[in-house]
């Protein structure tokens, strides 16, 4: 916008020497306007995300334990001590963090793979219209729509040993004696995987169905005329065309699953079994049980670095492959 344009329009109302002055003011205002519109968003993002994150990085270099919690700005500088504790794999803190990291990796791989597979499977089955399709599509989305804690609490009841549905069903089917502890020991890992997949796969379904809707239908008809079977159509047409959607979907599933806190927190009471000790709850419990925020922050920063590296590499590799194929 040039300086004269608004001045000319303003000329209808104003005249003489203050026309130009007003015009300039109006330009200045329209330059500032986008920033004014963004100001509330920036303010809250700064308060809740940016400043705490920078503070968190700062805290990770402080000896901030329960003695300094009330006046944490006076906590002594600790250098890299907190990081040293966190990755000291001879000490108990480092070993338990490493174990938790391993459990989280295994959990993430299994949950993302299963959720994506079920989502893809469901979306493919629902791709063509048939009677009852809309009903099923809506039904499948319900677990994702439930508040997370409600979904987990249902499973907590179903997985309880004496009065739960799962043991009852397994006994009815003669698959077990019906006395399994599902929320203890190594079984706890199976339980968190099932609960997480139950509420996450509908998201994969929703995203993939949306992606499939935007695929051109005539290509499939042409392929069918050329004699391509269902499996070939899926492999040669659907998968390549969904590559963009899959790239984003798998990244989002990965980040959500890796950072999952709700499932173990709600599923278990005070003590989380080691096999279900996901990294978020591990850091949470080691921070709030011992009030050692310095150490907790150092662990969080390591977690963030790991996620940034993985995300960066993932985007680099998948984007390059996409570029080459295109």
């Amino acid at each position: 916008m040039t300086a004269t344009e608004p001045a000319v329009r303003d000329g209808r109302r104003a005249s003489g020497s203050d026309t130009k002055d007003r015009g300039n003011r109006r330009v200045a205002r329209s330059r500032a306007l986008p920033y004014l519109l963004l100001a509330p968003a920036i303010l809250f993002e700064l308060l809740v995300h940016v400043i705490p994150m920078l503070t968190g990085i700062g805290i990770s270099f402080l000896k901030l334990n329960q003695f300094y919690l009330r006046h944490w700005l006076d906590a002594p500088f600790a250098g890299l001590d907190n990081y040293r504790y966190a990755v000291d794999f001879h000490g108990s803190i480092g070993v338990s963090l490493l174990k938790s990291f391993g459990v989280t990796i295994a959990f993430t791989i299994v949950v993302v793979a299963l959720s994506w597979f079920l989502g893809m499977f469901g979306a493919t089955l629902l791709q063509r219209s048939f009677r009852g399709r809309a009903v099923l599509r809506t039904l499948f989305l319900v677990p994702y729509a439930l508040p997370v804690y409600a979904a987990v609490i249902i499973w907590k009841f179903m997985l309880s040993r004496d009065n739960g549905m799962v043991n009852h069903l397994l006994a009815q089917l003669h698959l077990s004696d019906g006395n399994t502890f599902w929320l203890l020991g190594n079984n706890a890992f199976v339980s968190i995987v099932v609960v997480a997949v139950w509420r996450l796969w509908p998201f994969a379904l929703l995203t993939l169905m949306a992606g499939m809707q935007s695929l051109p239908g005539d290509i499939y008809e042409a392929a069918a005329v050329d004699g391509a079977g269902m499996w070939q159509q899926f492999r040669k047409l659907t998968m390549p065309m969904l590559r963009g959607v899959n790239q984003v979907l798998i990244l989002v599933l990965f980040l959500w699953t890796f950072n999952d806190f709700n499932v173990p927190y709600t599923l278990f009471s005070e003590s989380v079994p080691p096999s279900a000790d996901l990294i978020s709850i591990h850091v949470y419990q080691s921070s709030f049980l011992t009030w050692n925020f310095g150490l907790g922050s150092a662990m969080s920063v390591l977690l963030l670095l790991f996620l940034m590296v993985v995300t960066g590499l993932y985007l680099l590799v998948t984007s390059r492959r996409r570029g080459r194929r295109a």
Partner: protein
Amino acid sequence: MRESRSFKVVRAVGLTFLTLFTIVPLYVMVTSALKPLGDVQNEFHWIPTTVTFRPFIDMWSTIPLATYFTNSVVVSVCATVLSVAIAIFASYAISRYRFPGRQAFRMTVLSTQMFPGILFLLPLYLIYVNIGQLTGFALNGSRTGLVITYLTFSLPFSIWMLVGYFETIPQGLDEAAKVDGAGPLRTLLSIIVPAAKPGIVAVGIYSFMTAWGETLFASVMTNDSSKTLAIGLREYSTQISVYWNQVMAASLVVSIPVVVGFLLLQRFLVQGLTAGAVK
């Protein structure tokens, strides 16, 4: 289109499996909520011996459920209204103006989605405590603190979706309003907002669901008077002897509003998702 018989068989089997996997837990929730206490304390049964609505009445007196409910409603509604309003202004700036820092803002907001919540939970907790000590304005343990926290959680996705939505509204409408003498704010409120109503409703429901389901920050930042449903129901389900029929009834009641909202919204949500993913 021709469908092979084997595809139809696979489809029938596959959809039956997915349906059972989805529906059985929902069935357990609904039927257990209608069972008398004796039915849920002993071995599980698929069919209630008698159907009773007592759990839906008793749950309000076993725990202070009404308090939790009020807290969740107040926090979620306030966070939603503020978040949507803030997102509308920000999205308008991004979709209609070209200014230095535009792209940087978009990327920063989106990347906050990646951060593990635990990273800023500890410092945010300390900051809220400090603000309380310095100004006497309690953010920690209060609903205000939760509102401020939650409104930022839905902000990135809301802005992302609304920018996409606003960009589908032809610029010609803005120009016409400008010619008629409307300022930018009038244009936004009288042209853009009405035209983007479906998108705004979708973003609103999404924000509400985010706040309604949040657990991590609520577990640290609430006390007995500001506790939300997420924390209250978890405690309800971890007592020594749990009234599972009441817990299931409560879970059902707190789920209905968001499930209905989500199912109404899914069409718009899908549009928003693909708009972002395909681009």
